[in-house]
């Protein structure tokens, strides 16, 4: 267990020692800031909804940028050999990397807490809905991060890691938006597979275990893939 923490700390330190994380934070805050302040100043409405609606889509772009180097860079620079020859279990490496990326993205999301706090000064936001939305996005981040780790472990190439994670996240994001084009029961399946319906109900403040279970299973599924892959590699099934 302590191995998870050691790997997570190592990865976070590496990210925070490089400019990548800060650049991404700035971009994230600029984009989300636009969607928050636009209704505030243009329409004169203190409303968190436009911002909250955009966050999942922005995360689809942001999360892969954080996760893309996770395993790919270790493979490329050869440092995976250091990890693999230290007394770590394979799951400690994968979950440690997941925890590191999850924390870094969650930190980005936490920075946006300034928006509801500003609204709190201007008016009376529905704090339950705000808390629900943030909690929901946290689960969404977990799912996207797991997808990102999986994509990063596919090759040595960070760009491939980004594109695959982005494409998968975008498909899941869009699945819930294109329901009208599909007949029953395809649209029902899409509705369940896509992020939309799950994020929506949480954002309304409804913490349904089915939605949480959805995100947790997506995360678990995509984390198990690199785990199996690395375990096979370690057992010598392929080099």
């Amino acid at each position, binding site marked *: 267990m302590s191995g998870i923490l050691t790997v997570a700390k190592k990865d976070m330190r*590496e990210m925070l020692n490089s400019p990548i994380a800060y650049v991404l934070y700035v971009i994230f805050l600029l984009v989300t800031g636009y969607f928050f302040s636009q209704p505030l100043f243009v329409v004169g409405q203190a409303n968190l909804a436009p911002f909250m609606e955009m966050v999942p889509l922005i995360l689809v772009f942001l999360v892969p940028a954080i996760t893309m180097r996770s395993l790919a860079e270790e493979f490329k620079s050869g440092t995976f050999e*250091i990890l693999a020859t230290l007394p770590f279990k394979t799951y400690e490496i994968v979950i440690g990397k997941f925890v590191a990326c999850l924390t870094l993205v969650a930190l980005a999301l936490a920075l946006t807490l300034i928006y509801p706090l500003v609204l709190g000064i201007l008016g009376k936001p529905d704090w339950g809905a705000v808390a629900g939305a943030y909690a929901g996005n946290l689960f969404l981040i977990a799912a996207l991060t797991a997808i990102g780790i999986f994509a990063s472990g596919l090759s040595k190439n960070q760009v491939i890691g980004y594109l695959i994670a982005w494409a998968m996240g975008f498909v899941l994001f869009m699945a819930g938006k294109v329901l009208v084009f599909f007949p029953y029961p395809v649209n029902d399946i899409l509705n369940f597979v896509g992020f939309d319906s799950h994020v929506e109900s949480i954002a309304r403040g409804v913490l349904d275990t089915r939605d949480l279970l959805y995100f947790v299973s997506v995360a678990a599924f995509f984390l198990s893939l690199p785990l199996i892959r690395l375990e096979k590699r370690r057992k010598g099934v392929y080099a």
Partner: protein
Amino acid sequence: MIEVTGLTKYYGDFCAVKDVSFSIGQGEIVGFLGPNGAGKTTTLRTLAGYMPQSSGTVKLLGKDNTQDPLGIKRQVGYLAENNPLYENMEVTEYLAFLWEARALGDAATQAKRVKEMVFACGLSGVIGKDIAELSKGYRQRVGLAGAMLHNPAILLLDEPTSGLDPIQAKEVRDLIKSIKKEKTILLSTHILSEVQMICDRVMIIHRGRLVTDQRVAELQSANEEFILTVTFSKSLNGDGDFQKLQGVTAVEVVGAAGSEHSYKIRASRDLRRDIFEYVTSKRLPLLELRMDRKSLEEIFHELTKEGEK
């Protein structure tokens, strides 16, 4: 300390290491020699637990690598080929990470040990720097400090001096020499003089097979050959009749440079005295007489040629 029996490793259909067996006792320092692609790195990676063998058994400190891989990793120090390091970390951050990963103890012990390693590896000048900023020689020292941090009984070093300039390489060799008394070290290299300088024993691997496993001194004496070069100020008849001397195996006319005519004589014993007497009895105008022993380089060349057959 290290017991390897019938180690074989396939990558797909390609056999990188075939039926390699050796054992290394405590305190031995063994040079693992071979041309590029011979299977050195594959063997070391298997020992270090980076990947498993296709067949054969590997035991380190009495532990089987398939039964107790983590137990082995705890007690082995490994410097991987090309010395991969986390570029974005400072030297101390990297050592702290290794300390934590190996769960070696509290912060006070850590500080003490890191200080020791920094001193032993001459890293005090680069302590607060990012690893990415370091020169190759310093990076290699960081790698070595990392491999030795937990005071392992066994050190596996994959080409520790490759890519270094002669001065840096000497520094790294001196560092290895300074620790060799207490540790069992298996060191791969393709630089032969390095094996002569630091190793007790040499194993030569070629095309995945072990072709030699001998003490360095034995390897040299078993393949001993004396090469004498004699130079005269005039040309002799034919090959100068050196063949008549006892112990001569071959005579080669090296050729003339201006008024200098050289002959290379290969012999199984030291022939300097015989040649001197021969030359004085015939009153030949001798300019130079030089003797070389066959270098490890040439022995290595011959052994790897044999392996090709």
